[in-house]
C-alpha cells in the first residue's frame, strides 16, 4: 500500500502595510520616501520568501486619509508584486483603517493553516477618527491577537501612544532597544532600514516560527506579541529612538 495521497500545502503568511496617506505625508518628501522604501524592500522580501518555501508570503496594502481603502486589495505573492505609488491628501482615518483590516482578519477569508500575519502600521500624525473603536474591533479577532504588529512613526509629530496601543503593551522591564515600541524614523534612510527589517528579518522569523510556550502559562514568554520572537533591530540602531542621519522630519 502506498502512502496516502492527500492535498498538502505550505502556509500562507499575510503581510499587510497600513499606510498613512494624510496631507502631512506630502510634506518634506515623506510619501516619496515611503514609496521608495517599500519598493526597494521588495527584492529582499522575495529572497526571504524564496528561502522559506514552507511559507507563502502574500502582501497587501491599505491606505488611509479621509477614508480607508485597499491600495493593494488582493493578497499578492511577493515575487509578483509591483508597487504602485501612494499619494497623500486628506486627514487620518486610522480607526477606519483598523476596521477595514479587521474585515479580512477573520476566518474565512483567513485560512485555517495561515501563519500569524505581520501587520505594519506607518503614520506621521494623529488619528482624526475613532481609533479606539477601530482598535477594539480589530483586537477582538484571534488573528489580530496572534499577529506580529509593528509600527513606524515618521517624524516627531506621530502619535507614539496610539502606535504603541496598536502594537500592544511593551513587555515589563524591557529597556533599551525593542521592536515592541514604535520605531521612530526621522529621515528616509532610517525609514528604509525599518521597512527593510520588517519585510525581511521579521518575515523570515514569521515564516518558520518555532513553538513557544503557551501564553496560558504566565511564563515570561507569554507577554503580548511574543507569539513570534522578533529578530533584533538593524545593527546600526542602538535604540528605536536613536536615529541615524540628519533629523529631517
Amino acid at each position: 500500500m502506498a502512502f496516502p495521497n492527500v492535498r498538502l500545502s505550505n502556509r500562507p503568511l499575510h503581510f499587510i502595510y497600513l499606510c498613512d496617506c494624510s496631507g502631512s505625508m506630502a510634506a518634506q518628501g515623506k510619501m516619496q520616501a515611503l514609496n521608495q522604501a517599500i519598493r526597494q524592500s521588495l527584492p529582499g522580501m522575495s529572497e526571504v520568501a524564496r528561502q522559506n518555501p514552507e511559507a507563502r508570503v502574500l502582501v497587501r496594502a491599505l491606505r488611509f486619509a479621509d477614508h480607508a481603502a485597499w491600495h493593494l486589495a488582493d493578497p499578492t505573492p511577493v515575487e509578483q508584486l509591483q508597487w504602485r505609488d501612494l499619494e497623500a491628501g486628506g486627514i487620518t482615518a486610522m480607526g477606519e483603517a483598523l476596521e477595514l483590516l479587521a474585515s479580512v482578519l477573520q476566518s474565512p477569508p483567513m485560512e485555517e493553516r495561515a501563519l500569524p500575519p505581520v501587520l505594519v502600521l506607518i503614520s506621521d500624525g494623529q488619528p482624526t477618527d475613532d481609533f479606539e473603536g477601530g482598535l477594539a474591533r480589530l483586537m477582538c479577532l484571534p488573528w489580530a491577537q496572534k499577529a506580529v504588529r509593528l509600527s513606524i512613526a515618521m517624524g516627531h509629530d506621530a502619535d507614539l501612544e496610539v502606535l504603541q496601543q496598536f502594537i500592544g503593551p511593551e513587555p515589563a522591564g524591557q529597556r533599551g532597544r525593542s521592536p515592541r515600541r514604535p520605531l521612530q524614523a526621522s529621515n528616509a534612510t532610517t525609514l528604509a532600514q525599518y521597512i527593510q527589517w520588517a519585510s525581511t528579518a521579521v518575515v523570515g522569523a514569521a515564516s518558520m516560527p518555532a513553538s513557544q510556550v503557551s501564553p496560558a502559562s504566565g511564563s515570561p514568554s507569554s507577554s503580548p506579541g511574543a507569539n513570534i520572537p522578533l529578530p533584533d533591530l538593524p545593527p546600526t540602531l542602538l535604540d528605536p529612538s536613536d536615529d541615524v542621519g540628519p533629523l529631517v522630519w
Partner: protein
Amino acid sequence: MSPAWGVPRVCSVIGAAHRRQAKPCQDASLSRSLTGGDGQTLQLMAVADGHGSSRSWLSQIGSELACAAAEQAVAAALPDTPLADSRAWRQLLQRDLPLAIQRRWQAAIEADWRRRPEGDQQPLQTVTYGCTLGLVLLAPQWWGCTGLGDWDLVGVSAGGEANLLSEEDDDTAAGEATASLCLPQAVALCGQRACLEALATPGLQGLVLSTDGVRKSCASDADFLALCSQVVALEDAGELQRGLEQITSAGSGDDVSVAIARRAPTQGRGSPRRPWRAGLILLTLVGAGLGALSLGQRPATPPAGLDPVVAQEVQRLCADPTHLRANLTPRRAQLLQLLRDPAAAQRMLASPAQDPLGALLAASRQGQLRGCTALEQQLARLWGEARSATQPPNGKMPTPAARSDERPRAGGRPTAAGSR
C-alpha cells in the same frame, strides 16, 4: 489470549526547514510493549515535540527524555494496577501518570544539564528542554490517552472514517504557542486531555497520534483526516518515512511524527462493518418505538424531511457522543461563515454529500435539526461562541442574521438552534 492491538508503528522525520537550517529534529516518538502482572500486554505509543525556539535550545533532548519518562512511568505503574481495572487507569491517566512523568522528566533534564559545561555556571531553566507530549495506552479492554500540547489524536473506524478524538484547546494555545511539559501546571493540563475509552466503542479500528507538523502540512482538516484514515493501514516502514518526508517538504516544513495503532484481528471481529450494522440496528429499533428506554439522554431522532445524508450524520455523531466536541470544534470557521453569509447554508444543504457535517451545521442554523441531547448541547455551545465572536465590542449583535428563536434559551438547558 491474543492481543487486542498490534504493535504500534512510530516514525519521526526531521522537518524540511530544520534540515535546511542544519538544526536537529526536535520531535521524538516511541512504541513499547509492556507486560502486566496478569500477563496481559499493554501497548504504549508516544510522540513529543520540542519547542525549538532560542529559549528551548535543548528541546530535541527534552522530547526524547519526555518519551522515555512516559515509558518509565507507565512501566512503574503497571505491576500494581491490573489492566482490567479501567477505573484505576483512568485515574492514572488523569493525574498520577502525568505527575510521575513530569517528575521523571524533570530529574532527567537536570541530570543532562549537570553533564554540560553550562550546568556549572547557571541554574537550569526547564524551558530550555521544553516540549509537548502525547501518550496513548492500548490495553486489551480499553485505550486511553494523556499529555499536553499541540498533538492530535484521530480514531479510525472499521469503515475507514476518521474522527478527531483529541486536540489542544484554543484556550490553552494561541497561534504558534502551545502547552509544555516545562510548565508548573503541566499535570493539570494533562488531566484536561486525559481520557479512557472501553473497546466496546463501535467500530474503532485504529488510532493515529501525530505532532502538529502533520496537521499543519495538510491543506485542510478534511485532508488531515483522510490521511489518518488511510495511513492506519500502512505496513511498510520505509513507505511511512518517505511519506512523512514528502509531507514536511510540501507542507509546513516542521518536524513530523506519527504513532499508529491498529486493532489486531480477532475472532468475531472479522467483518469491519459489523459494529456499524449493530449500531444501525440499535438506532432503527430506537426510532421504531423503543425510545421510551430510560437512557438519561434523549437519543437521536432526526425529524422527517431532513435530508438522509444529514440524518445519517446526526446518527453517526450521536452514536458516540464522547467525540462530539472533537468533531464539531474544528468547524468553528464554518459556523462563522454561516452566520455571516446565510446563503452559505443553502449551498451546503444543496449538496450534503460533499460535506455531511457542514450540511448538518447548516441545518442546525436553519432550525431543521433535532439530534440527541449531547449533540444539541454541543451545537448550542458552538453557536453561542460563534455569535460572541461576531459580536461587536459595543455588545450589540449585528443586523439580525440570526433569528431570536435560534439563540440558546437563557436559564434553561442549552438546545440546538431552533431544534425545539
